């Protein structure tokens, strides 16, 4: 798939990226970059390109994620680890307000996060598409979430085209990758030797202006386009189009849901690695002295037992109902709520499912194999 944004890239050497990093650091930015940690790509504070996963590839299959060393200098030839942007804006756990009992009564105070300008290096098209949906959700006009917004406002996003796909990727079928297409500030395409770089926002421009750039050659531009085309062509999984996905709501009685309930552990891994899942819950924690309390917001999952709890019963007590809730909401309900499906084709839910359930396969069966209603 060719690049779809209006990019006008220039060439920089691999080491020029260090200059960009140095500038960001000296301007007070926290720089988060990909590192190989505990066997997976994880985003950590970095200040040197040597910390990046040089030459690493990722093998991803249902229920399987491994890093593999290849013999080259590429810094971004892997696809993704379990998390990138979601926890940076929508915190996995945070205090939202504090209550205190005082002489004269009570007080309530909003608790805002301490934030600082943060640059994230090497963000993929699928994750930018997911962030756009999360923005839509948490920065809704009538109720913008102040915590989300405070963090989101600090982000400078440095995206990179995917030149290879993992076996679990299917972003080409959802229209969200593998080429960058908006939602970032600075774009990168990794070449065999160096990068093409371009700015995609007013915020991104000043950072690359003084880098040692050379005009991109025709060969380099062709290499860039070919890379994302190859990545797209390498994808074997896909989701049906959105119109077809809405038909999931006509398959609520399909026997495959029950079949799924025998395999799915209801662990919630899929929802926590999914970059678009937004469920959360509030918990009230009282201090041991009893005179103050904190209200903590944490990620929740439609696979948790308490998610649908109604006093004396659960609306979704069965795993079949929970998986069906997840899949129908993500792929059909989202369309009504956000104008698009909630899946950006990153494939994380497939790789990180401990029993290797493949969303794309389940959906094919449910939509295509008769109705087999139970």
């Amino acid at each position: 798939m060719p690049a779809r944004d209006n990019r006008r890239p220039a060439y920089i050497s691999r080491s020029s990226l260090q200059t960009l990093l140095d500038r960001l650091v000296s301007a007070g930015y926290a720089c988060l970059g990909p590192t190989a940690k505990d066997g997976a790509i994880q985003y950590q504070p970095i200040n040197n390109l040597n910390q990046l996963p040089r030459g690493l590839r990722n093998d991803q299959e249902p229920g399987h994620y491994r890093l593999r060393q290849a013999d080259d200098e590429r810094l971004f030839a892997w696809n993704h680890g379990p998390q990138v942007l979601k926890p940076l804006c929508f915190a996995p756990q945070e205090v939202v307000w504090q209550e205190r009992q005082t002489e004269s009564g009570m007080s309530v105070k909003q608790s805002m996060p301490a934030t600082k300008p943060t640059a994230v290096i090497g963000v993929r098209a699928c994750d930018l598409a997911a962030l756009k949906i999360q923005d839509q959700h948490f920065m809704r006009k009538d109720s913008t979430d102040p915590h989300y917004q405070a963090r989101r406002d600090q982000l400078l996003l440095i995206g990179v085209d995917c030149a290879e796909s993992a076996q679990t990727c299917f972003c080409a079928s959802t229209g969200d990758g593998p080429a960058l297409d908006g939602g970032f500030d600075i774009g990168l395409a990794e070449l065999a030797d160096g990068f093409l770089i371009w700015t995609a926002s007013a915020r991104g421009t000043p950072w690359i202006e003084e880098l040692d750039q050379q005009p991109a050659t025709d060969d380099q531009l062709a290499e860039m386009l070919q890379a994302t085309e190859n990545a797209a062509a390498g994808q074997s999984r896909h989701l049906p189009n959105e119109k077809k996905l809405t038909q999931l709501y006509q398959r609520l009685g399909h026997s495959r849901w029950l079949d799924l309930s025998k395999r799915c552990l209801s662990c919630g891994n899929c929802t926590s690695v999914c970059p678009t899942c937004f469920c959360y819950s509030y918990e009230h924690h009282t201090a041991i002295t009893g005179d103050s309390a904190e209200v903590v917001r944490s990620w929740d999952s439609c696979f948790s037992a308490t998610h649908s709890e109604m006093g004396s019963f659960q609306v979704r007590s069965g795993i079949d109902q929970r998986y069906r809730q997840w899949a129908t909401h993500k792929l059909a309900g989202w369309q009504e709520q956000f104008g698009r499906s909630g899946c950006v084709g990153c494939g994380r839910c497939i790789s990180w499912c401990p029993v290797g359930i493949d969303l794309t396969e389940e959906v094919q069966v449910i939509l295509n194999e008769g109705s087999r209603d139970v």
Partner: protein
Amino acid sequence: MFDPHVPHLAIIDKRVQESPTIFSLRLQYEDTDRQEAFEFAPGQFNMVSLFGVGEVAISIVNDPEDSHFFDHTIRVVGRVTKGLEKLQPGDRVGIRGPFGRGWPIDEAMGQDVLLVTGGLGCAPLVSVIRYLLRRRDHFGHIHILQGVKHADDLIWREQYEAWSKDHGVNVLLAADVASRDWPWQQGLVTELINQVNLRLERTITMLCGPEMMMLAAIAQLRELGLADHKIWLSMERNMHCGYGQCGHCQVGPHFVCKDGPVFCYSELADFFGAKGF
């Protein structure tokens, strides 16, 4: 003014025990400006929080024109409501709200209104009944159908009697298990629907109560020929945020807290009654 994210303190002005498990609180925002500016519609709810314990979604039951206070009628069902039950006048709770979409008052203007409810004290419906009766001239025939399991479960018995006497309202009550002094019907609330002389073309229906009861009532109303868009119901789901963000309350693509809790049946038809939604 409307800030959904952090509660504002309200003081309990009055507490009334309605039944062994149901009580009402009259509340006022500590901040008088906030109280004066507080506006809501019948059927909307607040998230009421108890210090250090938790929050629950509770319907607002007084009339929107009362600007000096707001009332909540609460049934003791879990940890938070058990704690709220112990509060006394002068104590404080946290309030976030009002949230959600209330009853279709404008659509009901000039129409006959059939209100069907079951179970113990369905607060969302009480709020709209009071609203209609206070503006009785704006509406046609009003029928209130209430079902309870046991005759003793009926709260506000005098109120039902007053409604039928003073406001020209057709009140029909049914108890699965009647008692000796139960002057009304024994049986299910759905059996009462047949006793109402429905003027289909000018009737709007509002339902609230256990979903099985609403399902049965809706089936019957549709069979009688009432159009789906004239059937409205109030839904209950697990709620944490109250403004369409935490994801708990969803029924299909709908957020009960934001798109409801009052829905038109035609919006919900695909999911209402489907197990797991």
